[in-house]
Each structure stands twice: as structure tokens, then as C-alpha cells.
């Protein structure tokens, strides 16, 4: 890859209102507060965790389970049954639907594959999966209502979702009732899973299927400075929401830490579509890198207007790499960095990822039916298999405490990573796929491993 204006990379990152998952994306490249503890830091709190736990990485490769292991039946099964899992995502109600649908697809696709394979065996029973589907309507109150419905009316002991909105409120319902609750839901870093004690105490049935933003961002900054050593200055332009502030502040700190001079950190109201006034102000500061955080696709409007106004020699976007040129709608006169977690589907960075996105396209009825942010389906897909592996290891589909304890130890050879696991704070450990999009050049993507500090 090669940038312009003297920027020479050596090698080559959404809301609970619209962007929390987007952030995972943004933060393939993208931010962290101090490492000394306090809620919100993805690394263990110094005060609450005096001893960093040893790595959970298994010694032997054969200890890593695969889908084949999960689906293997030994012939001793004499019974058939069905497990009923709760399933609540943003399937309507606004722009979050664009993330809720693909995130839910990951669960559906995995469940379909497992059922098509005849189910999974626990003890002497082969189970198939039945999803009790609920639409949160991208609304916190509805999310609370459907969480209660799923637990009280439908009697589920496992809930998937939501993608982002309403997760803290739902988790406050699921955890006292010992319901296994898995979702990308990045707010857990600040709430239910803000410490190891919580992850092993009041929130022991909550798992986040996304690496904490803090780690994503800090790791992104370290990788960025290696890739773009000539970048000296940057400007941040972010959505004025709590997520936006959190992300931008972390980004500011992380990039400052790696030696980049952050010239300004500007905020705009949610729903903005014309950023020219902000960009005009930033232009006077002449930053090398304009980094933005907004809901996709509005972030591509920032890119377009930055190109028009001549702001920055390097830009970023949170949309799939193959859509950047289309959505920006004008020649890319400077490189655009695009991120996706854990894997993007445009230029797959592994054969397993390529195969997965083919299966996903087939599941959706064709590549043209794939949702805009289809890659977030991988924030649930592998974890369905991991949950089943944990049930098999615990020998139960009902005892959620035993299953949670097993889930803490499972290592799984998945699509996102060859060795997937939850760390001691119940955060999924995975890498990211940053891509570079340049005019008239092939899109280049590279998988960057999870930061080592995630493995605790």
C-alpha cells in the first residue's frame, strides 16, 4: 500500500445508538484510558486484580475444539430434545437495524447449521436448537420488555442479543436470574463486566462477544503508527453522544501515547449530514490524518466533504471496504482506512473467512442480499458453537452456572480466529481486519491479531 503526500505505510476498526458496533470497526485502527484501573478499561483493574491470570491459551493444539467436535455424536444418544434460546435483536426501528439484522444472522446461521447436522449431543440426548425470536425495535423499553418475556413467559435460560441498544438494562434482568446472556454489547466494559470480580460474581452469566473498545483502540493506535510512520498530526471529529465521547477520548489518548499530535477533538450533534463547517475549521489546522466517528453511512459523508474541502492526507471510514468508493461518490484523492472486527468479508484474510461469507451469502439468498454490515454476523456465529461446546463440557443444557464456568475455559477453532476464547472478564479475544482503500488500486486488508494484553 502506498499513500500520498509523503505518507508511506510499511504494511498495512458500532452505537448503542448507531455506532457501538461501528466502533469495533473503527477500532481495528482505532483507543484506551490509563491502564491503572477504573471501570472502562479493558485491562484488569490494578486494585481489584493484583495478579494477572495466566494465559488461557491451551498448550496443545488438540485442546482447541472445532465445529466438527461440537457436532460429533458418539452413538450413545438415546433421546432427542430441543433447547429453546432467547433471541432479541434490533430488527426494526431505525438505523440500528442495519447492525441488529446481521448480528442476529450469525446466531441463525449457526443454529441452522447445527440443526441441519442433526443437532448436538449432551449426555445421552441429542438436542436441536429452537430460537424464540424477538424484535427489540431498536428501543430500550422494548428491549426490557422482551427480555422479561423471554425469561418469564418463554422460560429460556440463554439469550442472544441485542447488538447494542438496551443491553445494560437487559443484563440487569438476566444476571440476577442466572440467564446466560451473550452479545457484542460493548457497554459491558463499563457496566456488567467492569471488573474480574463482577465477571465471576454478579455477572458470571454475561459474556461479551466483542473485544473491549479500549483494547481495540489502543491496539489500533500501535498498529497505525507502524503502518503510517509519517503521520505526525491528526484531528478527531466525532458524534456528540456518550459513545462518541468515550471513543474519541480513548482515541485521543491512545494516539497521543504513540506520539501523534492530536490537534483537535471536535464534536457534532447526532444526525448531522453536513459537516463542512466543522471540516472548514479543522482544515486550518492542516492535520495529516482526519479520524472520524459517526454512524455509517454518515461517516462516508464526512469523507466526501473532507475530500472536497481538502482536509487531511489520510481519512477513515466505518463502512465495508468495497462500499467506500460508492458511498463517498467522488475520486479518493487520499487513502481511506477501513476497519472491521473480527473479519471483513470483502477481501477475506483467511480461507475460513472466505468460506464463511460464501455460506452467509447463500443463507441470505445471494451475495446481493448480504446486509450492509454483514461482517458483524461473526460477532455471534462462532460463539454459538462455543456455547454448545461449553454445554457438552458441562454435561448440561440447563445448569447455566456450570455452562458459564465451562465457557470460561473453552478454546475454539472458529472463523474469526483459530483459537477463540473468553478472557477472565468474559470478553471475547479476537483480532481485526483493517483495510486500505485507494483510488484505482486493489483494496488491501490485513488481519491483525488481538493485543496480547487481552489475554488475561
Amino acid at each position, binding site marked *: 500500500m502506498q499513500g500520498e503526500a509523503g505518507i508511506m505505510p510499511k504494511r498495512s476498526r458500532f452505537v448503542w445508538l448507531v455506532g457501538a458496533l461501528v466502533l469495533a470497526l473503527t477500532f481495528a485502527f482505532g483507543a484506551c484510558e490509563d491502564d491503572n484501573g477504573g471501570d472502562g478499561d479493558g485491562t484488569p483493574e490494578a486494585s481489584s486484580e493484583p495478579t494477572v491470570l495466566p494465559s488461557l491459551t491451551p498448550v496443545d493444539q488438540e485442546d482447541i475444539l472445532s465445529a466438527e467436535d461440537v457436532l460429533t455424536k458418539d452413538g450413545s444418544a438415546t433421546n432427542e430434545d430441543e433447547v429453546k434460546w432467547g433471541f432479541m435483536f434490533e430488527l426494526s426501528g431505525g438505523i440500528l*437495524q442495519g447492525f441488529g439484522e446481521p448480528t442476529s444472522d450469525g446466531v441463525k446461521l449457526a443454529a441452522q447449521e447445527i440443526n441441519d447436522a442433526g443437532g448436538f449431543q449432551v449426555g445421552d440426548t441429542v438436542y436441536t436448537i429452537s430460537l424464540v425470536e424477538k424484535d427489540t425495535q431498536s428501543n430500550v423499553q422494548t428491549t426490557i420488555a422482551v427480555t422479561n418475556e423471554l425469561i418469564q413467559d418463554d422460560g429460556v435460560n440463554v439469550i442472544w442479543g441485542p447488538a447494542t441498544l438496551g443491553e445494560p438494562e437487559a443484563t440487569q434482568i438476566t444476571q440476577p436470574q442466572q440467564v446466560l446472556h451473550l452479545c457484542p454489547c460493548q457497554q459491558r466494559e463499563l457496566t456488567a463486566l467492569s471488573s474480574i470480580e463482577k465477571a465471576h460474581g454478579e455477572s458470571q452469566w454475561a459474556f461479551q462477544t466483542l473485544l473491549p473498545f479500549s483494547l481495540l483502540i489502543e491496539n489500533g493506535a500501535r498498529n497505525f503508527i507502524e503502518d503510517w510512520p509519517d503521520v505526525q498530526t491528526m484531528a478527531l471529529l466525532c458524534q456528540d453522544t456518550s459513545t462518541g465521547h468515550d471513543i474519541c477520548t480513548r482515541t485521543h489518548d491512545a494516539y497521543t501515547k504513540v506520539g501523534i499530535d492530536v490537534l483537535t477533538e471536535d464534536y457534532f450533534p447526532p444526525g448531522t449530514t453536513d459537516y463542512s463547517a466543522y471540516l472548514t475549521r479543522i482544515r486550518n489546522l492542516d492535520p495529516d490524518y482526519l479520524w472520524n466517528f459517526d454512524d455509517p453511512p454518515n461517516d462516508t459523508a464526512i469523507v*466526501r466533504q473532507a475530500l472536497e474541502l481538502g482536509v487531511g492526507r489520510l481519512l477513515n471510514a466505518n463502512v465495508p471496504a468495497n*462500499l467506500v468508493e460508492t458511498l463517498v461518490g467522488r475520486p479518493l484523492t487520499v487513502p481511506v482506512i477501513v476497519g472491521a472486527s473480527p473479519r471483513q468479508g470483502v477481501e477475506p484474510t483467511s480461507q475460513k473467512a472466505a468460506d464463511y461469507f460464501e455460506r452467509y451469502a447463500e443463507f441470505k439468498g445471494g451475495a446481493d442480499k448480504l446486509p450492509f454490515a454483514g461482517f458483524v454476523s461473526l460477532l455471534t456465529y462462532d460463539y454459538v458453537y462455543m456455547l454448545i461446546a461449553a454445554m457438552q463440557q458441562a454435561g448440561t443444557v440447563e445448569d447455566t452456572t456450570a455452562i458459564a464456568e465451562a465457557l470460561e475455559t473453552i478454546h475454539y477453532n472458529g472463523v474469526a480466529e483459530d483459537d477463540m476464547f473468553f478472557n477472565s472478564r468474559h470478553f471475547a479475544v479476537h483480532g481485526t481486519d483493517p483495510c486500505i482503500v485507494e483510488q484505482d488500486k486493489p483494496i488491501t486488508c490485513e488481519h491483525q491479531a488481538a493485543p496480547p494484553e487481552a489475554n488475561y
Partner: protein
Amino acid sequence: MSAGAPGSWGGEAVHPELTEFLQQVFNALTISGVYALIALGITIVFGLTGIVNFSIGQLLTLGAFLTFAFWDNDRVSFFLAVPLAAAAVGLLSVGLERVAFRFTLEQPINGFIVSLGLILVLQNLIIEIWETNPRAITPPFTGVWDVGGVRMPVNTWFVILVTAAIITLLILGLRYTKYGRAMRACAEDRDAAALMGIPVGTVIAATFAIGGGLAAIAGGLLASLYPIHPYIGAVYLLKGFAVALVGGLGNIEGCVAAALLIGFAETFAAGYLAGEWRDGYTFALMIIILLMRPTGLFAARGRLQQTLQ
């Protein structure tokens, strides 16, 4: 990169503060034009019927998506796609007037409620057809004029000029054409207008068509400026309604003046003050204006006809 950008007119900034100011003026003109088109769609229908049509935001969205559908990578020229979308949305607006709004003319508040329902119907229709994925139209002009450091995308100039032309035609049409006079008469007194032989129902339907068409044009033009998605209408509806209120509901010139006022206030607030408070400044300004002039800046006496006399 400014001087070397494709289609640019090279120029060096002579005075950074002046350049920034002029750039912000250009930025403000752009957003003012978009706000004016949306507010006109609201104000023209209100001026004649007293109905506040909140579904105008979704008509804008529909216009944007229809423009995209007609254009779809140069299937037809963008310059043809926008009028086609405007015609389609105009026809739909006539249909909506015939099947829904006409029954609310005596009770405009019912028309307002109908329009709220239409928001949901139209939004879900758009999602059903185009799904939630965002779309973008390659702007018909991709060059950027750089004049002394003030960078002006040609496409943005195009949007400003088209908007100015539409507003001028609308004002002239209402003032000097037979339909314009009929519309003003209907706004004054529908019963008297009918006794004078004016086809009131037709005039009202045509007014809905114009309102919807204006929203669709705004949507089409927006689609050439920003990526579009099915929820984009809500943002512009709020701003468009604020502009229409500040200008005086039913007052076209007031609407244009208010669009400029709001557009400039937003831009300069974002450019020179705390940017995150941009909407706060704008709505505070709107509240102050409405406290001082409850009927808006220009609507001194009533509806359309007075303001056009």
C-alpha cells in the same frame, strides 16, 4: 492538494481568516438551500390547507431513493432522474390527498395525525423496497473550484442554483399565473373561490403535488450530496419544520429568509462556537424569534395570499 484537485481552479489563500469566513458562507448557502426546499413543501401545503404535513420527510426520503433507482449507475441521467422522482412523488402526493387528506380539510389537526401515520407507512414501504442498506449517487459534477483557498464543489453550486431557480419559479408562478391566483384565492376563502368557479379540489390536489415534488427534488439533490438511508427524512423534517415556523407557516419568502437564517446560524455556530451545541444555538434562536414574533418572521396576517400580494 487543493490546487491539484481534479477540476479545481488553483488559488492560494490570501488571508486565512477571510478564506475561512468565505468558506463558511458557501457552506451555509448549501445547507440553507436544502432546508428551504423542504420547508417550502411544508409551508405551501399549510398555506392552502392549514395541514402540517409531517410526512414530507418521508416524501423527501422517497424522492431520494427514487432518484437513486432511476439513476442507478447511469441507467438514466441524474438530471432526468430527479424530475422523474419528483413527478412520481408528486403523483403519490395527489393520491394521498385524494384518499386521506381531503377528508381532513375541515379539521386540519386530523390531517396532521394522518401525516404522522403516513411516516410509518412510507418508511416501511421504503425499507421493504430498498432495505436498510445505504445508497449513494455519484454526483453529476465531481470537480472542485478553488478560489483563493475557498473550495467550492461544482455539484454544490449546482444544488444551490437549482434551489434558487425553483424558489424563484415558485414565487413567480404563484404571483403571476392563473393557477397561482387560484391557489391564493383558495387560501383566502375556499367557499368563495368555489363560487367563483375555481376548481378548489383540483387546486388543493395540485398543491399537494407541488409540496411532494419539492420534497422529492430536495431528496434527489441531497442524494447527490450525501449518502442516503431510509431514516434520513426525520433529520430534515425537523429542520424544515423549524424553518417553516420561523419564516411564518404559509409564507414563501419568509421560508427562504428563515432557511438562510437557520443555515447561517448552524454553520457559523459549528464553525466558530462549540460545535456540539450547533442545534442548541439554532433552536434557541428559533425560540427567541417565535417569542418575539409568534407567527414567524414574515407571516404577519395569515396565509399564502397575503404574503404574495
